[in-house]
């Protein structure tokens, strides 16, 4: 009874919020109220889900009362539950941030509706237990994101939005293709069922490897992994700041989650090829992201290239696929979602306040905004993984796992990339907040209490997460278990049989 209702709440709350806002018409203030309240409700529901999953194990509901391998089911294990909680927190923060930054025109043209529909899609992709259903939810959030990236219709938005649309359409087509291949091999779409069928699979390894490569192509495009990242820096640069924060924090992470799920459940036979290829691509992504992050002085660009570094580091953890590595990857995944949103929001605040995105042209802001400045430094340290902030634990476990598995180069690259992150973020900090003072009369008089509330709020959440990492360890151990021990994810099916 509880599982039937609870598991659907993260998907249904944003959908209902969107529908209510559609009925209201173009009334921005009411939209703000509805989306704010639904953001809070989602956080409450997600906390309840985490508690429920922690006590009772994986939560499963059979949609339409169809039995497990045949119908679609929503399966929320600890990894999904934690991701749902993080998504809800970020959604609430971004919605509050949008009140004062997105502009009344965009608000009037259903901005919040699209945010809510996108969150419904993201939550759905995190919680579904069916690979085709995951494709459907990918489409749901992609459709909403096409609107969000072009909403407002400035020249750069349309130009980059078109690229984004094209790239995602093509990779979605390949997603369907991959699912079709998988179905023709296994005869099932339920992810746990596919795992059980592939466990004693004695057919050709080549076909499974091909499917693995197709899936990698699809999700690597969505996540921005090395050869397929080309659309990311441009497309994420175009939309307004709250949308960038939402995209940077959530959308690439859905791709990573999908890679982790499929590579732990389906492609277990030929790990020597598939997981090594994944590791190689992840390392190349880290190197490329580091180069990009250090090359630019534009604040937005620096943070966008930091997304690539984080994607690489998380994938290193997931490609190692042992207990320590996946715990580290889960830690780093959650940490990165929160801190990326916080950093984008802080950078957004600086850009809205000064009107300039290039950090070289700013200086001395610490006199005007001391709290924001130091919070930015804390966020930068957390991003680089300075203990005891939240980024440290993820990197620690990932590097430990890399050395355990004799991947010394991988471990060293992850460690060195922290330096690149630190240099890139601290250089922004020093340029913007220290140095000689810029002309303060050019600062724009903006209302900023809500901007600072959500950005500093997220930094505080991140710091708390870092300090409470020890207390949260059992949660992450449980979350990682469904990746390094996929049988535990599939256990709800075996129990039924």
């Amino acid at each position, binding site marked *: 009874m509880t599982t039937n209702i609870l598991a659907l709440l993260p998907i249904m709350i944003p959908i209902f919020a969107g*529908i209510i806002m*559609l009925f209201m018409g173009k009334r921005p203030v009411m939209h703000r109220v509805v989306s704010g309240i639904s953001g809070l409700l989602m956080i409450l529901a997600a906390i309840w889900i985490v508690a429920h999953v922690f006590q009772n194990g994986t939560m499963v509901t059979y949609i339409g009362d169809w039995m497990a391998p045949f119908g679609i089911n929503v399966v929320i294990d600890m990894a999904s539950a934690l991701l749902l909680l993080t998504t809800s927190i970020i959604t609430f923060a971004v919605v509050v941030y949008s009140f004062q930054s997105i502009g009344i025109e965009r608000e009037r043209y259903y901005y919040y509706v699209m945010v809510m529909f996108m969150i419904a899609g993201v939550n759905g992709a995190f919680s579904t237990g069916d690979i085709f259903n995951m494709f459907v939810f990918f489409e749901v959030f992609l459709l909403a994101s096409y609107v969000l990236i072009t909403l407002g219709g400035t020249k750069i938005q349309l130009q980059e939005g078109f690229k984004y649309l094209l790239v995602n359409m093509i990779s979605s087509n390949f997603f369907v293709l991959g699912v079709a291949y998988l179905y023709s091999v296994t005869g099932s779409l339920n992810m746990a069922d596919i795992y059980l069928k592939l466990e004693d699979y004695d057919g050709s390894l080549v076909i499974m490897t091909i499917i693995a490569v197709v899936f990698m192509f699809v999700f690597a495009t969505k996540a921005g992994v090395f050869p397929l990242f080309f659309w990311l820096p441009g497309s994420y640069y175009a939309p307004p700041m709250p949308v960038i924060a939402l995209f940077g924090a959530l959308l690439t992470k859905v791709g990573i989650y999908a890679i982790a799920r499929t590579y732990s459940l389906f492609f277990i036979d030929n790990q020597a090829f598939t997981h090594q290829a994944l590791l190689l691509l992840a390392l190349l992504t880290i190197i490329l992201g580091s180069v990009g992050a250090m090359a630019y002085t534009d604040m937005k660009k620096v943070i966008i290239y930091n997304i690539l570094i984080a994607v690489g580091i998380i994938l290193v953890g997931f490609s190692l696929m042992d207990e320590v590595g996946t715990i580290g990857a889960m830690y780093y995944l959650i940490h990165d979602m929160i801190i990326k949103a916080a950093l984008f929001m802080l950078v957004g605040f600086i850009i809205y306040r000064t009107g300039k995105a290039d950090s070289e042209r700013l200086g001395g802001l610490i006199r005007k905004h001391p709290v924001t400045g130091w919070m930015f430094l804390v966020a930068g340290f957390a991003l680089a993984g300075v203990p005891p902030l939240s980024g440290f634990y993820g990197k620690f476990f990932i590097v430990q796992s890399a050395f355990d598995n004799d991947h010394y180069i991988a471990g060293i690259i992850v460690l060195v990339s922290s330096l690149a992150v630190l240099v890139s973020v601290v250089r922004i900090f020093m340029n913007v907040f220290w140095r000689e003072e810029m002309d303060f009369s050019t600062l724009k008089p903006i209302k900023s209490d809500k901007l600072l509330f959500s950005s500093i709020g997220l930094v505080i959440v991140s710091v708390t997460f870092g300090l409470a990492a020890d207390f949260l360890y059992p949660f992450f151990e449980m979350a990682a278990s469904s990746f390094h021990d996929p049988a535990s994810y599939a256990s709800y099916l075996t129990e039924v049989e």
Partner: protein
Amino acid sequence: MKSTLKKAGYNKVQKQVHDVFLQFTAKVVFFIIILFAFKLFFAGHYTPGGGFVGGLLAAAAIILLLIAFDQKTVEKVIPIDFRLLIAVGLAFAAVLPTLSFFFGTPFFTHQHTYVNVPVFGEVALHSAVIFDIGVFLTVAGSALLMIKLIAEEDA
């Protein structure tokens, strides 16, 4: 589009053409398409059809009117805000599966029964129809809204 046609020598394109044949045929064909749309809509669930194709066909019928007559006429015939149509459709589609929360059944669980109606005999009543009405309205509404917006932009 218009300028390209003009260059090609089609000077009279801009004028709204009162094509008697088209208008007369449209009036008749409109009802056939609408009826077929409803037939497809009710055929769904057990046989091919359903809300999506039904909605698309209904939208196609109205678009035929739009081509044969002009936008003002169509707005007079169907005085509905298509945005509201989408919202109502979505509400139908979202509320119905959520109702199963109150009956303690899993999401999207359907309920059905058979009733005896005097003339038609035994008729199946199915809760999925309400969901399908939602799909029908949403699809028809969004197709029409798109066409309408594109048409307005050109003018």
